[in-house]
């Protein structure tokens, strides 16, 4: 059995680590590329959301590379994700591929099923052993997420452009081979010292922007056009509403992101009083929280036809008005081009910068410089509200 799984940000690091521990043979699909997308599109239903299409492409490329078992998460709704695996199986079988599929359904569908599936993924291991493997796996996944969170926040402050991105790569390389709990702790410290060693100018008045939206789009750089790295390079400090280990973990605490599901729901309540699947509720809640914390703006990313975040998009203009915080929504599908996205993004950043400038005039603070490394100053003529 050669198992494979779709890409989603750093999930390949987390899963390959787990399978190394359980002793399962696996194939990591080629990094998601234009080819992946095109393969996925060939077989996908037109109105499926982008994550289904891209991950279908991952599966096809992995099958080409010799995988024979596909691993996919399941779910109990109400967002489509929970039925993805079934539909992908149906599509690929019809296209003539031969494979087995393991669907990891959440315990909400029954503990027995859940544990049986885990046993399949960890042949010959006892429940206790599996439990320990998962625990250590989580520890590592969290360490990786912590690094990412740090990079998102501090890339904007690096003195030499590109340093942080390079350091991040190095840090990941250090953490990858860590096996035992002690090794993970040690590697984490070492990795952090590399990130902290990047020369920064913390006095620089950077814009602070929150990124919210659908989890796959937030986590997978191919799908979001590497927007975070781009913004960081522009000199914008970021915080994000979803991290991989928070998303996988059944706990509602969100250790990495730092705000519990309950707090997020509480913040969203005046605008959205019920969860609607996916990240619909968190998208609204986080916007409120970012606004209260004084962020300069919020960027909302989600796939076309995504139901939960379409609901959020309908509600966000009201939040934006009430809290006077610019929010821009990007609806992404296979036709979205990077150039168009960047143009809109730049206009949005200009707007944020001019708002900050106005505010700092009132408070006699520093002016903000966007992209100080290139010496590009901001055009301040943008008076349009940041509503898309």
């Amino acid at each position, binding site marked *: 059995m050669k198992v494979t799984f779709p890409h989603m940000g750093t999930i390949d690091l987390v899963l390959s680590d787990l399978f190394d521990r359980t002793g399962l043979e696996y194939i990591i699909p080629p990094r998601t590329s234009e080819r992946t997308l095109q393969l996925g599109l060939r077989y996908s239903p037109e109105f499926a959301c982008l994550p289904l299409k891209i991950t279908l492409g991952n599966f096809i490329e992995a099958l080409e590379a010799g995988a024979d078992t596909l691993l996919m998460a399941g779910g109990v709704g109400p967002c489509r994700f929970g039925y993805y695996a079934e*539909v992908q199986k149906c599509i690929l079988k019809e296209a003539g591929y031969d494979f087995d599929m393991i669907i990891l359904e959440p315990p909400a569908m029954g503990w027995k099923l859940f544990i049986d599936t885990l046993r399949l993924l960890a042949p010959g291991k006892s429940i206790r052993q599996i439990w320990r493997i998962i625990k250590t796996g989580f520890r590592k996944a969290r360490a990786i997420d912590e690094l990412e969170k740090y990079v998102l926040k501090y890339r904007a402050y690096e003195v030499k452009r590109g340093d942080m991105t390079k350091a991040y790569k190095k840090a990941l390389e250090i953490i990858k081979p860590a096996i035992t709990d002690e090794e993970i702790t040690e590697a984490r410290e070492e990795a952090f010292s590399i990130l902290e060693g990047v020369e920064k100018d913390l006095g620089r008045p950077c814009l602070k922007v929150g990124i919210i939206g659908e989890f796959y789009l937030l986590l997978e750089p191919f799908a979001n056009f590497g927007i975070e790295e781009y913004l960081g390079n522009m000199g914008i400090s970021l915080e994000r509403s979803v991290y991989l280990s928070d998303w996988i973990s059944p706990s509602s605490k969100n250790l990495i992101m730092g705000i519990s599901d309950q707090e997020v729901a509480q913040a969203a309540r005046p605008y959205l009083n019920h969860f609607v699947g996916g990240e619909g509720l968190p998208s609204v809640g986080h916007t409120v929280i970012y606004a209260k914390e004084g962020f300069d703006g919020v960027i909302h990313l989600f796939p076309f036809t995504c139901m939960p975040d379409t*609901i959020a998009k309908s509600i966000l203009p009201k939040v934006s008005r009430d809290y006077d915080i610019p929010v821009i929504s990007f609806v992404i599908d296979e036709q979205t081009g990077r150039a168009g996205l960047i143009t809109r993004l730049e206009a949005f950043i200009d707007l944020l910068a001019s708002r900050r400038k106005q505010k700092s005039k009132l408070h006699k603070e520093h002016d903000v410089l966007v992209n100080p490394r290139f010496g590009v100053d901001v055009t301040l003529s943008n008076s349009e509200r940041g509503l898309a």
Partner: protein
Amino acid sequence: MNATVGIPQALLFYKYYPLWETFLKELGVDIVVSNPTTKKIVNSGTSLAENELCLPVKIFFGHLVDLKDRVDAIFVPRVVSVERGTYTCPKFLGLPDLARSLDTQLPKILDPVFNSRLGRKRFYESIFDFGKQFTKSKFRIWRAWMAGVSAQKAYQKKLLAGATPIEAIADEQVSTNNGDLKIGLAGHPYNVHDPYINLNLIKKLKKWGVSVATEEMIPPKILEHEANRLPKRLFWSYEREVVGAAFHWMRNKSVDGIIYILSFACGQDSLIQVLLESEAKKRKSVPLMSLVIDEHSGEAGMITRVEAFIDMLRWRAV
């Protein structure tokens, strides 16, 4: 004078109007139903809605606008789940919030929560909670609800006997339905039964000598049973009914063809379409045609496609 409460003639109206109407009336309010969907309603809804929303929700917004100056409140329940272990559509879970966030002045939104996932007790608690604003008497609320339930049962009986929701609600005579060909219309009830959305498909089919079957004419037990043939239980109730009906027709060949009406940008429809088309291919018993509808669907194009489908079915029958 009684307060007037508006009920939009859209979305779940087609499923639950008799229940809602009776329940609210028994609680002592007057009911105003919005006008049937028109171009004006569609336009006012579309102009308020985010572009990415599905057409049925946009149209729902139009019905809110249609009601807003005529009523004291509008009834927009949050229908989370109608049977254990399933959901409705995410948009129904957030519907009252979507309504409130519209950039227009609306009357008060009445949004009781219907959620069967939480068990009977919590379900009724939320009904009492809602009823409290009309009467202090729990007994009266209970009676109103039970009256609603029996109205709903009577309604479903009429549907089973072949009335369309519009006919059953208006207590009209059931239009004749015996052509030489029979087509099953699969899809969400608001797509199948709102004549504006589907460009009057039911009437047209009947005019062309085609009789029409819909999911409402199939007993729920059968729908349930058929939908259970999917490898994984679908967690959306209404989609289970859509799949159940289509599978039923494919299996017992009680129709000559199936037209599946789906909304552009509807999440559920995008997946259901795969399941239905794959089943149709496997069984090769009953031809299936998918008809995608959005605000730009042109009548001419649709008629051509449906006519071609019917011609094909008649050829097969020869």
